[in-house]
């Protein structure tokens, strides 16, 4: 039982990392990874939104299924996520204004962050139970956080380096993101063998 949850959790963090393997949520990944504090803050914010979003959308999906309205999944989920993000923004503005300022425009952009919508739909497609879905959402969020923090480290090295002029700025950042993503390919199969799922 616990092995099943651990398999889902680490599978989401390492094998199916939302940013580096599934390539979801690239916008904040590129935009907020310059500074370690805001990168970690963004990761934590997205993790929170993912958790709460799945906590709401999973029961909502059951309701939709009962009414035979599964085709409303996308629009209903987006509505829920948008509300949650607005709520999160208010909470951050009130209680952690420094994080609110450093996240800037990327905070409301979590609304349209495909990683959040992705995890809510994915846990349903995988047929997870409610606790499994929550664990998967936590894993997806932690994976996002991990990717943000790792990439922040990569970026700070890249910024000290002196690449040819044509590669400076966004090009070299994208290339280093690709290499970071490739390194995550190495995790394929590891978790399955560890937990025997």
């Amino acid at each position, binding site marked *: 039982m616990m092995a099943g949850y651990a398999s889902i959790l680490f599978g989401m963090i390492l094998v199916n990392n939302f940013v580096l393997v599934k390539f979801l949520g690239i916008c904040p990944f590129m935009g907020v990874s310059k500074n370690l504090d805001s990168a970690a803050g963004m990761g934590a914010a997205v993790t929170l939104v993912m958790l709460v979003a799945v906590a709401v959308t999973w029961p909502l999906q059951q309701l939709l299924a009962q009414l*035979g*309205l599964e085709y409303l999944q996308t629009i209903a989920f987006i*509505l*829920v996520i948008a*509300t949650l993000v607005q*709520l999160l923004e208010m*909470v951050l503005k009130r209680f952690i204004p420094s994080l609110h300022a450093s996240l800037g425009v990327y905070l409301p952009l979590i609304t349209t962050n495909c990683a959040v919508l992705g995890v809510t739909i994915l846990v349903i497609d995988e047929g997870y139970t409610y606790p499994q879905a929550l664990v998967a959402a936590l894993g997806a969020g932690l994976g996002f956080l991990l990717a943000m923090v790792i990439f922040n480290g990569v970026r700070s090295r890249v910024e000290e380096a002196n690449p040819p*002029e044509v590669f400076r700025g966004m090009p070299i950042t994208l290339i280093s993101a690709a290499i970071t993503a490739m390194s995550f390919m190495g995790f394929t199969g590891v978790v399955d063998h560890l937990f025997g799922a």
Partner: protein
Amino acid sequence: MDSLLLTIALVAGIGLVGGVILVVASRALAVEEDERLGTIISLLPGANCGSCGHPGCEGYAKALLEGAPCNACGPGGHEVARQLGELLGVDSGEVTVKRAIVACRGVGERLVLKEREGYTGAESCRVYATMGHLSNSCTDGCIGYGDCMASCPYGAITLNKNSVAVVDPAVCIGCGLCTTICPRHLISLQAMNDVPEVSFVLCHNTLMGKRALEACANTCIGCRKCTRVCPQHCIVVENNVARIDTSRCIDCKACMNVCPEGAIYPLVWVPKQ
């Protein structure tokens, strides 16, 4: 029909619940904002150019409330600084009004075309600049595809008949967006001082004198004649190009008269507001 109504009811219901939650939350979590913030934002030009060193006009407005000096807004000029000073009850101080200047007059129509000869890539200065130098003419001059023109939110930059970018000082607000666009770093912000006209070297050619002359007929050759005659000592020669500190220029025209190549030109400022 039932399912249609159900669909509408469901989506509307989710929206309603979400809306109610947000209304309650915004009341409960309201953050008090200084009421002067809105007034300050409306006073600022709203260009979000960042030339004050803050992220956009809103960022500057917030910094102002925390005691930042109110003369940092170049685009707003004296008038905005005065209004801000009145509102915040502080001395507004002097504003350094700046204007963008393109330090190139072009090497003439024929030579511009010669430099671009054989180039078939995208019509963009920045793309062109990455391609390496395709000819023997001036490699520091205006490329003339008008990237700066496209970047100017106020339409202050035009291309003249020789495909050289020219800034209209009456329209330019000195935000400095174009200075970061030019791949040859030809555009700079120059401080306006109290004389209506200043001298300026309209050249960026870093080649040595003889080769500079071969590349362009309008070049500065770095002969240093102007540095010796300037009564203000505000001219320096670096990398074979003379540079004039326009904020100290008194418009005596001594440098213009002595320049053997005619590279120094008068710039006419628009009067300060």
